[in-house]
């Protein structure tokens, strides 16, 4: 009711005649026809937008106090590390802003991985939503880059050595490798120039992200939402307006998310070393390598794929391929049926795929042992096998009958 009143107000009409704002709001928000059977797995898209907003806002305030300089200060610390501690100790509610940002990074990946998993399980990547999916993969890559750049900024031991290990990978590439590595580092080793350029990129990438998320939502509204049955629903039958049905459902989802998020922010902001690693409370020291270097949890599945190969170049190629293959997913899967609900073989495959990613993540986070290495290699094999099998599954898979309507 309130929204109807606002959209019919004289101010809104005046704006509408000059900008289409009311028509756009009706078409894309209030009256936007949405399948009536979306389950709570569809909440993660709006949650991802919420976390992106939290990250950008908290990040803007952190940048007011943060100083990207590796210049040494007393006690073996640096200007950057000191400025983070000043935020934690002296800035009013600085601790809250920083913990929101640090926990938000992990929350962002949890939410986005759930969102991607939902897209794979219910076949949301399949035609006509291929471009929507591809834009989503671009978003994932930019997110991973943003997180990687951001993790260097506190200039702790894990920041420094994590960045050293990852930038080393680029050095393994033939011909352009060493050029690329020096370009990223701004020198021959990770140092002050690296910190400065990573800070600049860490500020740039989220703005790109916000723009591309706009494209993602636009592409969604052209092809419309998939739903758990994977059956196309057209305007009218089977759809309900986004407002109030999905605004209130998403509001409930946001509430549940915020309870969990705030619980972590206020009571376990390091989450036992998973969200902020213990070693990152030690100042960066280029003469002392930590006993165990691992990326933060959300990058560990890809780190395991990298470590599964004895040859460094092969590992780097496999890691790149494991992300690049996501772009091809819509074209590899030839089945006419979208949702795993009606595809018994695909359903088993995709559940095993999710398990393999979790196993990869676990292996990448742990201290390497021969057993874990073997388990990681098996999970790597399945990760790629999933994509190799996809083009052939529809040839022998007996799909269950689809419902006529939802």
């Amino acid at each position: 009711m309130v929204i109807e009143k606002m959209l019919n107000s004289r101010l809104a009409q005046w704006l509408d005649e000059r900008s289409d704002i009311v028509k756009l709001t009706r078409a894309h928000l209030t009256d936007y026809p949405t399948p009536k059977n979306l389950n709570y797995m569809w909440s993660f898209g709006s949650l991802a937008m919420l976390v992106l907003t939290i990250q950008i806002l908290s990040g803007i305030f952190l940048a007011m106090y943060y100083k990207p300089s590796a210049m040494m200060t007393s006690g073996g610390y640096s200007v950057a590390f000191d400025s983070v501690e000043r935020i934690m100790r002296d800035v009013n509610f600085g601790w809250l802003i920083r913990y929101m940002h640090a926990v938000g990074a992990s929350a962002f990946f949890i939410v986005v991985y759930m969102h991607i998993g939902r897209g794979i399980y219910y076949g949301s990547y399949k035609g006509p939503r291929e471009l929507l999916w591809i834009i989503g993969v671009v978003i994932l890559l930019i997110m991973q880059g943003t997180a990687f750049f951001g993790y260097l900024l506190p200039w702790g031991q894990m920041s420094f050595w994590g960045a050293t290990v990852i930038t080393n990978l680029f050095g393994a590439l033939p011909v352009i490798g060493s050029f690329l590595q020096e370009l990223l580092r701004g020198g021959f080793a990770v140092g002050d120039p690296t910190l400065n350029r990573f800070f600049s990129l860490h500020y740039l990438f989220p703005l790109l992200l916000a723009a591309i998320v706009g494209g993602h939502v636009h592409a969604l509204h052209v092809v419309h939402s998939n739903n758990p049955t994977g059956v196309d629903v057209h305007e009218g039958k089977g759809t309900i307006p986004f407002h109030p049905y999905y605004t209130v459902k998403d509001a409930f989802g946001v509430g549940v998310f915020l309870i969990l998020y705030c619980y972590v922010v206020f009571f376990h902001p390091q989450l036992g070393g998973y969200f902020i690693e213990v070693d990152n409370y030690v100042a960066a020291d280029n003469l002392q390598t930590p006993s165990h270097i691992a990326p933060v949890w959300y990058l560990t599945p890809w780190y395991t794929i990298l470590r599964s190969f004895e040859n460094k170049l092969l590992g780097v190629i496999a890691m790149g391929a494991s992300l690049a293959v996501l772009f091809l997913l819509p074209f590899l899967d030839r089945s006419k049926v979208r949702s795993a609900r009606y595809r018994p073989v695909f359903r088993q495959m995709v559940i095993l795929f999710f398990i393999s990613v979790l196993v990869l993540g676990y292996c990448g986070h742990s201290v390497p042992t021969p057993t874990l290495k073997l388990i990681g290699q098996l999970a790597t094999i399945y990760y790629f096998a999933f994509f190799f099998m996809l083009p052939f599954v529809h040839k022998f898979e007996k799909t269950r009958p689809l419902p006529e309507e939802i």
Partner: protein
Amino acid sequence: MKLKQMMAVSFMLGGLFAALPGHASEGHGVALKHADIDVTDQAQIRRGLTVFTELCMGCHSAKYVTYRDLIDYPETSLSREDVDDLRGDKPLIAGMVTDLAPEDAKVSYGKVPPDLSLIVSARRGGADYVYSILTGFEHDPAGHVPDGNFNEYFPGNRIAMPDPLSWLGHDAADTADLEQQALDVSAFLAYISDPHQNERRAIGRYVVGFLILLTLVFYLLKKEIWKDIKH
């Protein structure tokens, strides 16, 4: 039904995190002693501060904690007079830095003693680690490491810090007193590693409580608005 599914998913995720071995369990095998401390206990934190300034600060600093902070933080709230006694001729806004020069420390101990502002956050096991180290000095069973440099809980057992509480060979009558000093200073260090932690937890209760109520309202609203939709 849907709500149950979602709750099941969140429980599974929570269980996953709980089941994964934490960092604390990695490393050198010896189980740490549990430090039964209370970072909200002003008396304990003040006693720990005394141990810190009279003993630890001979070599160690806590540069992120200023003398001014000791007045301002409710967990210490020292009087101006007490702080003036502690700081001598150092400025009020100076961090608590040891008078031992890094060069001299290197000569005496072979390395510069680490700053302790963040030691509890920066070590696996946190306060348990600090407490265990302080009460972990023993004779080396193999007889290689000189007394005062052998510590049961230090990775590799050979520690540069020479037994600060004189734990090794203490009289049985002093055990309780030494343990109390180790506990108190562990509590102080745990507190200064994140000096707004008590405020954070206090605010957190209201935030999470409010969100639970708000979410309940959203849930009822959702049920009401959706009651005519068959899906």
